Structures are given as structure tokens and as C-alpha cells.
């Protein structure tokens, strides 16, 4: 049987350990956006954030044989990003540019331990993955309802559609997710959705 890097995590990990670029590409693309946001939420500007991540992924690639699980890789990436950001700020402080970043640090975000920060970002990733799989209008409805917390009427007003359409799209979205997901994931969804 042919194994698929995208769905077979064990295979992905094996290939990664062997230094296969295709596996590395998947791990890169899966983690890159959340790490960018992670750094930005700490107050790192886009450009230095990109640089940091670039260095970090190179390091990960160098040490590919040392990792045994995707969780291990994820932990390494987050923790190292945090350390890179802290070092970056130390340097900035020395350059007397502290004020610029002071505002960003005021956010409650920086008071969370790194474990909670990782949970937050991984949750965002999950929400984005789940909703991103939906067809267009359906996606908009789900997003407005569940992420922005609008009522069906508000969603209807905003998208200029009938309230009934909102309910239809919501039902469609749920059944779409049901079809799209793998059996185990579906089971998992069933636990939540209580059809």
C-alpha cells in the first residue's frame, strides 16, 4: 500500500528523520504560520520574525535525526522561537529601542506561560483547518457565527442573505465536515456534534 505523507503521521516522521525534503516541507508549512503569529504576538516585527524562523527551521533540519515525534518537533519549534524572541529583545534593549516594543508587551498574552501560549495557537490552527475545508459561503457563515459570535440574524444581515440560508449553510457545513474527515476524526466529531 502506498503511504501518504500528508495523512500518515508515522510515515511523515520516518521520512523526516531520514532527511527527506518532502517531509520537511510539510512540517515547515504546517508550523510556519502559527510560529509567525506566535512571534508577532510577542511583539516581534515581521521581518526579524521571518529571519528567526528561517534559522530555526535550518537548525531543526540539521538535527532531524534527533527527533522522535511530531509533538517533539512542535515543542522544539515553539520553545526555540520564544528563546529567539527573548534574545532579540535583549539585543533591542541594548540598542535602547525598548519603548517601541513596550506596548506589545502590555498585552495579557505575554503573561501566559509558554504551554498556554502553545495551546492557544494550536487551537487557532485547528479552527482554521476545520473551517478552511468548507465551501465559500458556508465558510463565511461558520466564521461569522462561531468565531465572531454573531447571531444567525446578524450573519444574515451582514452577508445579505435570508436567515433560512444561514441555517442551511450551517447544516451544510456540519455535514460537509462529516464527509471530509477521516473515520477516527469523524468519530471524534460525533462526540461533539451530537447529531
Amino acid at each position, binding site marked *: 500500500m502506498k503511504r501518504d505523507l500528508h495523512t500518515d503521521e508515522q510515515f511523515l516522521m520516518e521520512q523526516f528523520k531520514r532527511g527527506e525534503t518532502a517531509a520537511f516541507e510539510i512540517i515547515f508549512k504546517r508550523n510556519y504560520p502559527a510560529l509567525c503569529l506566535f512571534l508577532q504576538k510577542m511583539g516581534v516585527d515581521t521581518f526579524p520574525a521571518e529571519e528567526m524562523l528561517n534559522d530555526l527551521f535550518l537548525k531543526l533540519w540539521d538535527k532531524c535525526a534527533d527527533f522522535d515525534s511530531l509533538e517533539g518537533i512542535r515543542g522544539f519549534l515553539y520553545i526555540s522561537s520564544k528563546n529567539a524572541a*527573548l534574545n532579540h529583545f535583549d539585543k533591542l534593549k541594548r540598542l535602547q529601542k525598548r519603548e517601541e516594543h513596550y506596548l506589545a508587551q502590555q498585552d495579557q498574552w505575554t503573561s501566559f506561560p509558554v504551554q498556554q501560549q502553545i495551546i492557544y495557537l494550536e487551537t487557532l490552527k485547528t*479552527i482554521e483547518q476545520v473551517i478552511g475545508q468548507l465551501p465559500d459561503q458556508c465558510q463565511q457563515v461558520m466564521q461569522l457565527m462561531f468565531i465572531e459570535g454573531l447571531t444567525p440574524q446578524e450573519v444574515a444581515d451582514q452577508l445579505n442573505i435570508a436567515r433560512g440560508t444561514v441555517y442551511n449553510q450551517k447544516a451544510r457545513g456540519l455535514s460537509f465536515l462529516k464527509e471530509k474527515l477521516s473515520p477516527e476524526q469523524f468519530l471524534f466529531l460525533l462526540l461533539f456534534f451530537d447529531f
Partner: protein
Amino acid sequence: MKNIPTHIIQILAYRHIEPLNEQQKDQLASWLAEDAVNQDLLTYFDDKGKLYQDLQQLKQQDADGAWEKHRLLFEPAQQTPVRKMQGQAWVKWTLAIAALCLLAFGVFLYQSNKIKEDQQFADSIKPGSDKATLLLADGQTIELSEDASGIRIDSNMKDADGNPVLSQAEKQALSSFTVATPMGGQFNMTLPDGTKVWLNSNTTLTYESLKDQRIVNLQGEAYFEVASLQLPGTWGKANKLPFVVQTKDQRVEVLGTQFNVKSFAEEKTTATTLLEGQVQIAMNTQQMLLYPGEQAVSTGQRLKKQNVNMSTVMAWKQGEFVFNEEKLGEIIAQLERWYNVKFELQDARLADIRFEALVSKHLQLKEILNLLELTGKVRFIVKDQKILVKRNTK
């Protein structure tokens, strides 16, 4: 670092899409109960505007673009083209290469011997264990091994075979004695007055029982659970028998409570941390009253009070290393004491790099060093019976 709970991530995500069922609610509730900060995180999630904004921002990150931009770096090194050599040049080159090979082989032989030695040394590093030496007032020493752990030091002390340890004369001498742990050792025991003491590595404690007080001299780190004693023939709080811990600078006086004192000779600071009850700290002319959760730290002539994370302070007694944004200098000091090894910093500034970690003290040193290396900040190299710490320049 603790594991990231995958099921909680799923629950937090679907929470925004459909109501949770009972099982999910229970799981969420028990996660919230684990740590107050989890509730804060949930509140943070419920700030809909922020969540939406963060989701938008997440979507805008261009992973494909970044990959394209840097893919060359991540691809396996390309073969560099080989130029063909002409005429007699190959003879010279062959000779030169042969000479180099011989030289390299010689260096390799020498190196591989050294590497073998370094490897053997690395393998011989073991975590510490329960052991200590008891020194009696008459100069006699008694080795206390693992099976003596938790022993009560009093006149009825027995060895592993059940024979009395002390002679009649020695029992008389027991009003004062010293217990010392070596590097790579720790020990817990009960003092004659009923006070329980845990000694960390490389620690020396001298106990003396006087008529009106109990005095302990401490160098190193120890945790005390002091037995509350009444002065003979009295009653009431005012007549309790004081228990005094004297370190190089602080004097800690208590009646009956639990606290940790850290005061190593090679370190500038002394820190007394209170878990329960109340203690009185004195240094020179300064005095300070400590309440649970507080730590009295003295550096040179200054005595100040601060709040600390108890689990970090007490980790050593629980068999753990907890490094909470801890400086490498302090981490190394702890590892040196427990594994009985020497570290050498290539550059003194390395001591200020901070790390976060929670690991068991039973791990091999190699495993802990690997974890620290994973941060990409430092590298550890075993060389000549020492561990060299280098900045990771890659």
C-alpha cells in the same frame, strides 16, 4: 516542559463551533482545575474580537511563499562540479593527497584514543544517590548508605544488620555531631529532637542541642521540618525551645515550622524560603519576619524579601530539577553538585543565558544536556574529565 494536551486543543477549537457534550465539558473542567492560568486562557479565547483578529492574522502568514524563498537552503547540498586535471598534475596531487591521508590517519589514531577516554568518562557519570557521613564529637566517622536513609540519629541507632551503632561513650557524645553529604549525594534523617532534615548534595550540617536552644550550622542546602519542643517544665508559646539555623550570613530562628535554606560556600547568596509557619531572620543588625511563600535573600550586606515559586525551590527534595527561566550558571552549579562533574564555560557570558526545564534527577546527565542543546543555544562537549560549554554558532 509539560505535554501539550491534544484533546484540550480539540475541545477549545470545537467549543466555538458547536456546544460541547457532557464528556467534553468534564474534560474541559478538569483541565481548568489544573491551573488557574488555564481559566485566564479561556477568558482570553472568549474575547471574540481578538480571536477573530488572530485567526485573520494566522491566515495571512504565507508559508508557501516562505518555503519558496528559502527552499534552496533546505534542500540537500548540490554536488559541486569536478574539474578535470591535465598532464602530470595528477601525480603531484596523488602524492599530496596520500601524504595528507597518512597525516590525517595519525591524527585520527591519536584523537580516537582521546575520544574513547572522553566517551568512557561520559559513560561513568551517574546521578547522585542517598549517602552521607556522620561525624561524632569524638572524631569517629560512620558512613550512612542508602539503606540508612530516613534514619533517626539518636542513641538507639542501629546499622543494617540491627547492631547498635554507638558505644556507651559515643551516646554521651551525641549532643553534638556533624552530617555531611558529598557531591552526588543527598540524605534525609531525623535529628535527636525529632526534627526532620533533608540534605542536598555537598552539604554539611552540624547539630548541637543546648539547654535553651537547638543550633544547626549549615553550609549547603537543607530543608527542615522542625519539631516543636517545650522548654523543660514550662508551657505556652513563650516557652518553646528555639531552633536556630546559622549560615555564613543569615541566622534563622524558628519555633516549629517548615523551611528551606540554601547557602553554599561557593555562592554569594543565601536564601531562606518559608513553606509553613513563621520564621525570624537576622543578619548583622537587620531583622526580618518571613511568612509562607516568602524568601529572604542575602547578597553581601543586603537582606531582602521576595515571593518565590515554591515548586522551583523545593524541586531538589522532590527528585526534580525545575529551571524556571534559570540562568545557565545556576543550572550548571546544580548539575555539578548532583552528578559530581565539572563544567567549563568557553565564554563567561554563557552563564547568563536562561533556560526553562523540568526534568527528573534520576536521568543520566547526557539526557539533560541533550535537552538543553535542543534549544539551539549551547553545545556540551566532554573533554579531559570536564564538560565544555560552547555557544552554538550554527
